[in-house]
């Protein structure tokens, strides 16, 4: 019960109020953990089920939890509720502080969210688009779906043509 504990700093992505949370994790035998979150200590027990989900008991409350690694973040699914969380240990935090100056604003890549057929392309390289503007229409599973710009900018690349079939995740349009 008195093992060494490790400190983590976690931030929930995409929330209005994204204050970092401090968590101290102490591992015991048999998948049991004590975790202190914002000053309150919780007893956790985690069991991995055959299909990959984790049965998690938090102070006796029962949750089915699934994890997915999303870049540097961990995505957590619990009761249909999805959070994307950045969890950093102290070494990682120091590293980040050192490289923060080099961070840049990313460009926006619109990729095919499913395999399908390109029905219509509304934009060409050089066009200026506003947030929410329709870029192209794909057909999949008998439905036509419009892909929209998620931010304003200039179209720098259009890598699909009307009438062609594209695979999942194919890059279609780039906006900068």
């Amino acid at each position, binding site marked *: 019960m008195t093992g060494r504990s490790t400190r983590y700093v976690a931030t929930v992505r995409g929330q209005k109020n994204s204050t970092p949370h401090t968590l101290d994790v102490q591992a015991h035998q048999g998948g049991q953990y004590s975790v202190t979150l914002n000053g309150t200590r919780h007893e956790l027990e985690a069991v991995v089920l055959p299909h990959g989900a984790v049965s998690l008991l938090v102070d006796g409350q029962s949750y089915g939890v699934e994890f997915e690694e999303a870049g540097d973040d961990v995505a957590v699914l*619990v009761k249909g509720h999805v959070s994307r969380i950045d969890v950093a240990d102290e070494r990682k935090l120091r590293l980040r502080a050192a490289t923060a100056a080099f961070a840049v604003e990313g460009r926006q890549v619109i990729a095919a969210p499913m395999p399908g057929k390109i029905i219509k392309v509304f934009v060409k390289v050089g066009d200026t688009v506003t947030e929410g503007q329709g870029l192209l229409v794909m057909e999949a599973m008998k439905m036509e779906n419009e892909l929209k710009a998620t931010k304003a900018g200039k179209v720098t690349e259009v890598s699909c043509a009307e009438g062609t079939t594209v695979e999942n995740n194919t890059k279609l349009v780039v906006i900068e």
Partner: protein
Amino acid sequence: MPKIRKVLVANRGEIAIRVMRTCHELGIGTVAVYSEADRDALHVRQADQAFCVGPAPSRESYLVQDNIIAAAKKAGADAIHPGYGFLSENPNFVRACEKAGLIFIGPPASSMESMGEKTRARAHMVKAGVPVVPGATEPFPTAEAAKAFAASVGYPVMLKASGGGGGKGMRKVESAADFDSAWRAAKSEAMNSFGNDAVYLEKYLDKPHHVEVQVFADTHGHCIHLNERECSAQRRHQKVVEETPSPILTPQLRAQMGEVAVKAAQSVGYVGAGTIEFLVDASRKFYFLEMNTRLQVEHPVTEWVTGIDLVAWQIHVANGGVLPFLEPISPRGHAIEVRIYAEDPRTNFMPSPGKIQYLRVPGGPNVRDDSGVYAGYTVPNFYDPLISKLSVWAPTRPEAIARMRRALDEYVVKGITTNIRYLRAIMENEEFLGGDYDTAFLPRQHPKLLGEDDPALTEVSLLAAAVYTHQRAQKQARSLVSTTSSGKSGPSAWRSGGRFHRLGGRS
């Protein structure tokens, strides 16, 4: 009368399985047809026999009449059940079946023709004295003519494909400014879906409910109705939730609508299972919308409250049998159905085909699952994204809603994104609970239905993420220290399980 001994089901997915289940119970042999993309689909295994009818696109397989009929002859089937969609409302196919000596389980070609094209159906109904929505009865040759007519009945108006159904080729137009783009979209969708780009328009009603009446007719001149279904929870005119009884119908209104529905069916010499769709406006006036001359997707709710197997009745009538009951049946209790789609409500309901890694369907009292998939199955990209219909029954509407919530909580589909959480949100939405939700309910409540963050679950997620990260770090440390000590793994072999998709939206 020839007895039906073997039925070819000219469909796929859940409805093919639904029809085969009844055949199986009746001791009738079943024949599946499948496209090249569907060789590993569940309906192929559910059937006694199975024949390939062409490549993946429906137009080259499930819609090729000759191939379907050839399969039926080869298999020795004596009847064809069309399910819904595909060839189910195609009078030419009915005639082709008859010519080939096969019983078509459905209405005669003539009633299909009378009801198949919406403008013709309207004209028929007007003649039979059935109330219809104010609007034009003929497709418009040009956008200009249509626009002029829209101005005369007043906005908003509805554009509708003359040859269609299922919400395809339909567009609501709020004002003259939006007319042109809506007209183009409706025509193109109509052409793509039905090979016919004729479009007409109607006045849009005030807070309309979509309420439909199930009718059933035999070849001996009997026709009854089996009560209504409330189908106002629609998205892009695609039904999402259906229930019976309708929360807004009085017994008087039910009886009136039932009577009109029977009259409508009789006026076209209908036989078999059919559905008369009505719009019921804020003043509870009802208007004929269209007739679906086939088994409806949402037929299970009617089965729940009547105890009738509608597919068994279809076969019985096709065999020349007299309807088992000749009086309307009072509904018993309340039933709700939700449609589980492989789609992502957060990205404008984008379809999400892919492999189902894990599946657990709900069980327990009065829960029914009609699905066409199985664990390990890859939902293909070529067909409708409907993967399951979940329906429940309870003595009262609030109990049925509570049961549906429970059933949705139990439903696990891993590997692809589904609308289960969105459906769950509908079951908690105040407007839905109130019962008086019109056809604009889903678009109106959309942001609410996507759900909000729950602080308690966020806390659990933080704790879980910390433990996950900690465990991962420990494992990495261990594997750095001793990569040679094999066999003995840690106490809890964590792994990132099946994928759950589109977690944080696009980036």
